[in-house]
């Protein structure tokens, strides 16, 4: 096993925990001294991790938005003057809220890039490789860090922002790209585009490693991407608020997403009682950043549902605990439909198992007072073949999820495709309750 930073990655667990606590104490002292926001929230005299959990309040998105509104654009939470920033990023604001805006100092950005290097190196990326990052290179932090990480590692990066999917496919093939970064949703789009172009990616391209991150995905989607590209897919995630990668999937064990524990002190809490849950139990990830200086983060209630397991269950030699399956879902992703809990990934898992399904869109609607799943499926099947497909989809939903959906077929190419994260399950119950 090779590591980007062998000392930090394989440090004995008790040393790592001591180191984390020293870093947390330094981070708190710096924040209290420099940020009015954190000075109000972090009490003086915290001497143990237990006290930290008991006395520092959980940070919700609404707290950040309020701080931002008080002193736009970055709010009262920065610990350094924004003039020291060398980059600006912000969240997409798709939830209807204003975006969270952040900046990185030169030192913050160096650290962020290093978190990507850690993940890429672990997954076999080396200096002789060529990489392509298929994202928009815009305001959203997304894969910016991957681009710079590939440069730092000595790879050749082909910039692919602002290009359409066909051009990206051509670049992948013509330049024999070995490393690819994108979201799982966009990977599915590229697979479809390549098929339309008559290109067999597994045979004609040379992709070896794919960082498919930034959104939950089903195992089926991961397998589909791996088979289509003939490459290994690994998961990784970061957030704009945290400022770097906080977990990456280990090549030694499928779904074991190691937490970058020198940079983040993570708690996993019961969503109702807000008390810590044990290894192997589902809870909400609450994170504290230990590395960033410009914008710091303490006890951020991320709404990510995770299951933490001890590092020893992986066996790669890293002493960093891991999230089994990465981010399983967002705490607000789960919908109850007639008493059955349904998540977007469950629906994706069923629909992606049909070769005939090219794309789909699903919604929860109220029909004659009853909540139901409505699925619009894009396919080439028509007539009797289409009817048979509907029947098979309904049967599979009943078997896997326990709900009979309404299925509607639509012609190939009619549903919108995602260039970034897909939103495939829409809750339209309020809109349809009186319809």
């Amino acid at each position, binding site marked *: *096993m*090779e*590591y*980007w*930073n*062998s*000392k*930090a990655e*394989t*440090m004995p667990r008790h040393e790592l925990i001591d*180191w984390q606590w*020293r*870093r947390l104490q*330094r*981070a708190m002292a*710096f924040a209290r*001294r*420099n940020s009015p926001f954190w000075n109000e929230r972090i009490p003086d005299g915290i001497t143990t991790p237990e006290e930290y959990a008991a006395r520092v309040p959980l940070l919700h998105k609404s707290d950040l938005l309020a701080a931002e509104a008080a002193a736009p654009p970055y709010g009262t939470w920065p610990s*350094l*003057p924004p*003039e*020291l920033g060398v980059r600006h990023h912000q969240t997409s604001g798709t939830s209807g809220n204003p975006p969270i805006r952040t900046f990185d*100092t*030169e*030192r913050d*950005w*160096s*650290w962020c*890039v*290093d978190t990507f290097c850690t993940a890429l190196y672990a997954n076999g990326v080396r200096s002789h490789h060529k990489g392509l990052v298929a994202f928009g290179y815009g305001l959203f932090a997304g894969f910016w860090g991957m681009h710079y990480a590939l440069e730092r590692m000595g790879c050749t990066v082909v910039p692919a922002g602002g290009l359409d999917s066909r051009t990206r496919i051509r670049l992948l093939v013509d330049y024999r790209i070995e490393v690819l970064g994108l979201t799982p949703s966009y990977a599915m789009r590229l697979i479809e585009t390549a098929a339309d172009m008559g290109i067999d990616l597994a045979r004609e391209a040379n992709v070896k490693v794919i960082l498919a991150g930034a959104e939950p995905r089903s195992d089926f989607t991961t397998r589909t991407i791996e088979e289509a590209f003939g490459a290994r897919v690994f998961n990784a995630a970061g957030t704009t608020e945290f400022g770097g990668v906080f977990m990456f999937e280990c090549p030694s064990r499928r779904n074991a997403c190691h937490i970058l524990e*020198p940079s983040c002190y993570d708690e996993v809490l019961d969503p109702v009682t807000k008390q810590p849950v044990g290894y192997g139990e589902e809870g909400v990830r609450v994170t504290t950043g230990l*590395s960033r*200086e410009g914008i710091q983060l303490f006890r951020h209630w991320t709404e990510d549902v995770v299951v933490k397991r001890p590092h020893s269950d992986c066996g790669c*030699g890293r002493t960093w605990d891991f999230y089994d399956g990465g981010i399983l879902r967002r705490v607000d992703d789960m919908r109850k439909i007639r008493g059955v809990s349904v998540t977007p990934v469950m629906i994706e898992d069923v629909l992606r198992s049909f070769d005939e399904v090219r794309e789909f869109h699903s919604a929860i609607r109220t029909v004659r007072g009853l909540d139901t799943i409505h699925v619009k499926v894009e396919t080439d099947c028509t007539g009797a073949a289409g009817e048979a497909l509907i029947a098979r989809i309904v049967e599979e939903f009943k078997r896997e999820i326990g709900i009979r959906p309404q299925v509607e077929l639509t012609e190939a190419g009619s549903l919108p495709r995602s260039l970034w994260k897909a939103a495939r399950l829409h809750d339209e119950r309020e809109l349809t309750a009186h319809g």
Partner: protein
Amino acid sequence: MTNANSPLTAEQEQQLLRTYHELQDLAQACGVPAVRAAVKTALAELRTALDGQAVDFEYYPGQAGVFAA
């Protein structure tokens, strides 16, 4: 193959730390914009490298001085 057993030696660690401090001094004293910019970039990268080796040093600005814009 593993690199887990080939950590930075104590001498290399001292060398890294010494370089970091020398560049800090240079960043403070140097008036040439091009040199100063290059030194600050190098400092940011060295800080990340030192941190990855779990070296205790002045991680945040103000702990020991420089880092002003």
